[in-house]
């Protein structure tokens, strides 16, 4: 397994980049946290500590400007493995809150995106009228829209999971529409002509030609969509005073200067996004395999 990855020539470059990042990070930790230690020493009337002492202290602060990697990972370990997942201090609990909104929003966004794309491809009026609005929707900053969605839905008596999910939907339907319009239009002229010679109906052309042709486009869009769904869910938690979720952790962390908590939530969100994108990738490969793709065409 390891050998195979080495042969592909990805492992060494990736590890090299990782090592460089870690080195820069630790150097920055010392550089950014040192002023606090010097101030501290001055205030207490002590001598400024020597270099090795200084380095040690910069990496063990309670509220560092920049926490060291090992501090972040210790915090993640503490709040995932050592806490019960039902605890309000468990990062797993908060991740699940965000993940559930992400997945619901992603599902609605995907369904909405596909439905719009089908309409755009099949209906001339929709083709001319909908696409500009779809693009306009994405030029509005999500941070401006998110609180309004929450407030409006709250007034309508809807609160909890759905409003957050809808913010995810708002972001994630876009790549699906764009990708699927392209995918459903991807069959060439001779394939379309062929269907015409069979006197195929529109629904037959859709199910036998357009839909299968669009699969690679769909999954490429879904990878983008699932990642921004997560962004949407986190953004949905931030301006609304949510008490749970990764967004709430980020916000609470910044209120109380808990930088380690912020960074651990950040890493958790990144890991979650990576896992979600990977899962979509697996689904993509499985579908391509079922569709009889040439093995080397599957990445």
């Amino acid at each position, binding site marked *: 397994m390891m050998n195979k990855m080495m042969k592909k020539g990805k492992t060494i470059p990736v590890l090299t980049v990782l090592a460089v990042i870690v080195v820069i990070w630790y150097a920055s930790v010392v550089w950014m946290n040192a002023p606090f230690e010097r101030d501290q020493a001055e205030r207490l009337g002590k001598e400024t500590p020597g270099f090795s002492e200084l380095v040690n202290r910069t990496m063990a602060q309670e509220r560092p400007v920049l926490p060291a990697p090992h501090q972040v990972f210790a915090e993640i370990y503490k709040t995932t493995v050592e806490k019960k997942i039902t605890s309000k201090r468990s990062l797993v609990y908060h991740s699940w809150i965000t993940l559930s909104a992400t997945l619901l929003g992603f599902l609605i966004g995907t369904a909405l995106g596909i439905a719009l794309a089908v309409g755009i491809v099949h209906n001339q009026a929709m083709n001319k009228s909908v696409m500009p609005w779809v693009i306009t929707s994405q030029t509005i900053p999500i941070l401006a829209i998110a609180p309004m969605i929450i407030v409006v839905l709250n007034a309508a008596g809807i609160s909890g999971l759905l409003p957050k999910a809808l913010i995810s939907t708002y972001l994630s339907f876009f790549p699906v529409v764009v990708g699927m319009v392209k995918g459903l239009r991807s069959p060439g002229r001779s394939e379309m002509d062929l*269907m015409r010679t069979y006197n195929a109906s529109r629904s037959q052309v859709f199910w036998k030609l357009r839909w299968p042709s669009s699969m690679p486009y769909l999954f490429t869009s879904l990878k983008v969509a699932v990642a921004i769904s997560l962004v949407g869910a986190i953004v949905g938690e931030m301006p609304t005073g949510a008490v749970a979720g990764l967004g709430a952790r980020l916000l609470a962390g910044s209120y109380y200067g808990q930088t380690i908590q912020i960074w651990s939530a950040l890493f958790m969100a990144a890991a979650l996004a990576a896992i979600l994108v990977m899962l979509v990738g697996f689904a993509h490969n499985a579908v391509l395999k079922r569709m009889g793709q040439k093995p080397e065409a599957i990445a």
Partner: protein
Amino acid sequence: MTVVSADSLDLTFQTNDGPVHALSNVNLDVAQGDFVSFIGPSGCGKTTFLRVIADLEQPTGGSISVNGMTPQEARMQRAYGYVFQAASLLPWRTIEKNIAVPLEIMGTSAAEKNKRIENVLSLVDLANFGKKYPWQLSGGMQQRASIARALAFDADLLLMDEPFGALDEIVRDHLNEQVLKLWDQTNKTICFVTHSIPEAVYLSTRIVVMSPRPGRVTDIIESPLPRERPLEIRESSEFLKIAHRVREGLRAGHSYDE
């Protein structure tokens, strides 16, 4: 019986560079069981004419009938099978599933479907390749599969638009032989577009020579060659004489200085 009948057919495309006269005053009758080749340089309207028969283009003047109907009515009744220059097989379907596409669309029963698939696969010598995906087949085999697909619903008219244009000459010779055999076995009417003189002469009972600007028919040659045609017939003097006449016709209708 006349299968295709065109009477002073005209077709002008409106393009951004002005109108293009693709077909001008084309008169042609294709009888049941004919093998008609259309030959000419690009832009002579040979493919356009085939597409008019198939109701893929609309003529702007004159009249055309297919099986005594308008092309549209004929298409609705699935009166013809069409083979494109590219095999256009759906990559996510196996060969037999590809052949099943028109049958599925036409609502053929499962038992009948299987019987027909088996039948046409053996007609094009692909009996053992039904379970393969298109990418597992060579270009020539893919084109044979696409011919099998056009034969699957047993239309009496077969329209072939440069089906072997992208293949090398050895494969092409082999496929030409197969097409002739198939024509002989099924007694279908075939309209065949090509830009190869030997191919046209070898295959056809009639050769329609066309020339461009405007696209028109310059010569129609009735072939005196027998129905039974071994590959060696291409070295006979009769064959060469027809080939010569086709070449003359092409030269007369087309100035290469343009």
